[in-house]
């Protein structure tokens, strides 16, 4: 899996011409800015209490503007912005490890240190700012896990991206297969129950002793397991009441207690089950794309445009099917599980990969033809301050929505939430542009840099984004 350098087979991935001399790759900053800010339109659901139950209810009703807008957001953004963040993260890994070239030996060490501090930032974001769906923790871990892969050839990386995407699909499938299994067990237990009923009636008529007619504990548990699954699937906005009440609590401590389990489950359960594949596939893709010089205008503008249109169209088609089957399964899950071999979300990993790739192409196309360039400059600034902006979003939104702050949780409509998100994004765009006029780095970026550089005597001018990367050192 990992190509060795001792056999010298790395030259294939080295760009033949020197990289463009501008210090940062503009397209990456723009994509990062768009992804981090765009993600807020989806995160705002969780920050603001637009719950799964409400979302599913809209899908069940399936008409009205509320439904259409939610559907559009779900199709266009949900999961896709995270994918874009991961793609850029993958590309940035290679840049980081290449550009600290003067101290190659140190590059790896610095990278690992940075990742460990990033994990800590993530923990703070999750357990101090109380943003349960923090992503920094996961990016920190994934960076360390995938670190050795930066030396792989782009072909290997593409294969890795495809494999992990397929495993992700498989995970969704197995998750569904478990439920199906539960249903089968339920069926056999209820059949048994009916038989016992019949038997005891028959025996009762004869007046003889009772036959074995009660379910064992395990059989009862099997029956309850499926009933529990069904109850979980049932759309009912009343289920949210307890959570809303808890989120309106004025005390920070109580909110902390209430959110602890959610945050831990996101960090442990979600990571192990889906997160690894969700992020690894896109990080691999980002590394591979970087090595093919995708972010350096490798293709002509029109080619980027065509790829963008094809990817987005294909992604939307898959997404449309996903939502359709989700609607079907929400109407009657038992019927769905009887009639369908695969879950509604089996192709979600491919859907969001296509859309993320399409968006990246579209942005590069816009940049190359100078379309809306003023806006992209602002997004590029936001992208340079991605970490600060990301943490600032947590701060603003938790204080605005949570009970210990202004307590708007579950008090705004879906549309109002988008307005809040748009306001936050606007503020961040403006702030980012202004900040970069005066400072080189964002506050969180500065702190992180300070922390991982420590007191090591490496001159500051070898920070990522400064040198013309001699890629050969790594590849």
């Amino acid at each position, binding site marked *: 899996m990992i190509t060795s350098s*001792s056999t010298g087979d790395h030259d294939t991935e080295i760009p033949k011409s020197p990289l463009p001399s501008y210090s940062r790759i503009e397209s990456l900053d723009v994509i990062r800015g768009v992804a981090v800010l765009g993600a807020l339109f989806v995160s705002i659901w969780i920050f603001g209490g637009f719950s799964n139950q409400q979302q599913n209810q809209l899908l069940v009703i399936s008409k009205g503007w509320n439904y259409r807008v939610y559907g559009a957001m779900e199709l266009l953004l949900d999961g896709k912005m995270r994918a874009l963040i991961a793609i850029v993260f993958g590309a940035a890994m290679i840049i980081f490890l290449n550009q600290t070239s003067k101290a190659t*030996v140190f590059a790896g060490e610095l990278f690992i240190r940075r990742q460990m501090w990033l994990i800590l930032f993530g923990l703070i974001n999750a357990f101090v700012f109380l943003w349960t769906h923090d992503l920094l923790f996961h990016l920190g871990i994934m960076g*360390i896990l995938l670190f050795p892969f930066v030396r792989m050839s782009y072909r290997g990386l593409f294969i890795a991206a495809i494999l992990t995407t397929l495993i992700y699909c498989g995970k969704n499938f197995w998750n569904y297969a478990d439920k199906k299994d539960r249903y089968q067990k339920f069926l056999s237990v209820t059949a048994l129950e009916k038989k016992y009923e019949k038997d005891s009636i028959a025996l009762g008529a004869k007046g003889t002793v009772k036959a074995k007619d009660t379910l064992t*504990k395990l059989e009862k548990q099997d029956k309850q397991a499926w009933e529990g699954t069904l109850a979980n699937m049932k759309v009912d906005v009343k289920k949210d009441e307890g959570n809303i009440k808890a989120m309106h609590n004025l005390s920070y401590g109580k909110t902390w207690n209430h959110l602890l389990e959610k945050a831990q489950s996101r960090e442990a359960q979600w990571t192990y089950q889906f997160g690894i594949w969700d992020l690894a596939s896109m990080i691999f893709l980002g590394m591979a794309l970087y090595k093919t010089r995708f972010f350096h205008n490798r293709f002509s503008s029109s080619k980027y445009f065509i790829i963008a249109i094809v990817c987005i169209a294909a992604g939307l088609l898959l997404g449309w099917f996903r939502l359709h089957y989700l609607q079907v399964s929400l109407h009657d899950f038992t019927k769905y599980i009887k009639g369908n071999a695969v879950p509604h979300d089996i192709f979600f990993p491919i859907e969001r990969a296509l859309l993320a790739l399409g968006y990246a192409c579209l942005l590069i196309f816009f940049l190359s033809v100078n379309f809306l360039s003023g806006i992209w400059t602002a997004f590029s600034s936001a992208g340079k301050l991605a970490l600060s902006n990301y943490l600032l979003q947590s701060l603003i939104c938790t204080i605005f929505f949570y009970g210990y702050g202004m307590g708007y949780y579950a008090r705004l409509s879906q549309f109002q939430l988008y307005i809040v998100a748009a306001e936050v994004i606007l503020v961040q765009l403006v702030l980012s542009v202004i900040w970069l006029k005066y400072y080189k780095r964002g506050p969180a970026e500065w702190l992180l840099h300070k922390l991982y550089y420590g007191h090591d005597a490496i001159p500051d001018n070898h920070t990522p984004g400064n040198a013309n990367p001699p890629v050969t050192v790594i590849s």
Partner: protein
Amino acid sequence: MDNSLEPSMQPVETPVNAGPVQAADRIKTIDIIRGVGLLGILLMNIPGFGIDPSVYDSMRRGLHNTTDFYTLKVVSIFFEGTMRGLFSMLFGAGMILFTMNKKEMPGAVPVVYLYYRRLLWLLFFGVINAYVLLWWGDILFFYALCGMLLYTFRNSSPKLLLFLGILCLSIASLKTSLWHNETRESRHNYLEAVAAEKAGKKLTSEQKEAKASWLERENWRPQPERIEQNVTQMRSGYIAVFNHLLPRNADDETWGTYHWAIWDCLGMMLIGMALFRWGFFSNNLTTKDYTMGLLVGYGIGIPVGWLIFTRGQLGMANIAQYVDTYRVNHFVLYDVKRVFLSLGHASLIMLIFRSRIVPWLMKALASVGQMAFTNYLMQSIICTLYFHGYGLGNYNKLSYHQLYYVVLAVWIFQLIFSPVWLHYYRFGPFEWLWRSLTYWKKQPMKK
């Protein structure tokens, strides 16, 4: 904790930096301790391989003069957690050794990449051990993840390492403590509800719930149906065992990592790195120091272990009484016991090595330790094939103490197999595979 460690540590600092230790000697003592840890780990793992866990409940509640019970007592007091402790310590030391032994060469793969590749493969082997060899108690997965956090500490001072190690273990103790507090709160709510009931008040739904949840806890016993199901499944074919263990494996690798391994294993690894830096494992201290380590280690470790077993483990059979009596759970001392007892074991081994009374055993143990990775996986292979249904199907057929005959057999086999193998080959078979994968190049095998 810190203070009591100091006496055995202080005189150490000078001799260590006196120069590189004789390579042969150093590797030998480290391998011997690793070998002991590797063999010892089976003491704790064997019940997991071969018997339904309800056996613990019946031993605790049953007669306390049976062979089973005495076995449990000895294993719990003297060994529980300590062999994993030794193994973790040596793993931490090994991480330093790995980076130390390699020089950065221009054009070659930087050491940091080798380090992380190696651990990534270890992670993979851990997954194989759990999901293919079907050993649900696999530890390689955790080791690989913890190891990935150690790299940046490889040059840290022993004091910092010791501090961080103790910090990790303290967090583990804190978690135990928080868990105990929850139990106490549940008991408290129950008692309040009962008192209210006696006073003739109508219970609120919350109080009813509190009462029910405590009673469920207090009256929890292993369900006979569950035991039967577990035993049947474990004695079935490969697919059935795989499916049966799947949720447990996934749960362990998820929550075990998050709540347990990161503190338990990482803490010991850091302490192991500190001890290594002080020269403890490389036979660099004076005999007096090791004697001190032995006395302090056993002097504190054994009484604490005894306390945890007799008061804690047995006391918790009657959870209501236990919770009413103790504000703090005995298991907060678990890691204190582990650190000291591991230190005692390691010192004992060093002293035996120095006294040269059983050179043949030391040689065999060094071979076992040199092939630790192979031997660890081999324990999984032998034990799963002996106990699981697709092998000989002896699951839950032996009594608790009889399991230790199996341990003895495996020990003897590994003590003979390892030196013989190493007589002909340079590495153990799995070490060779691991190495080849890490360097992505077939490594020489024959001597």
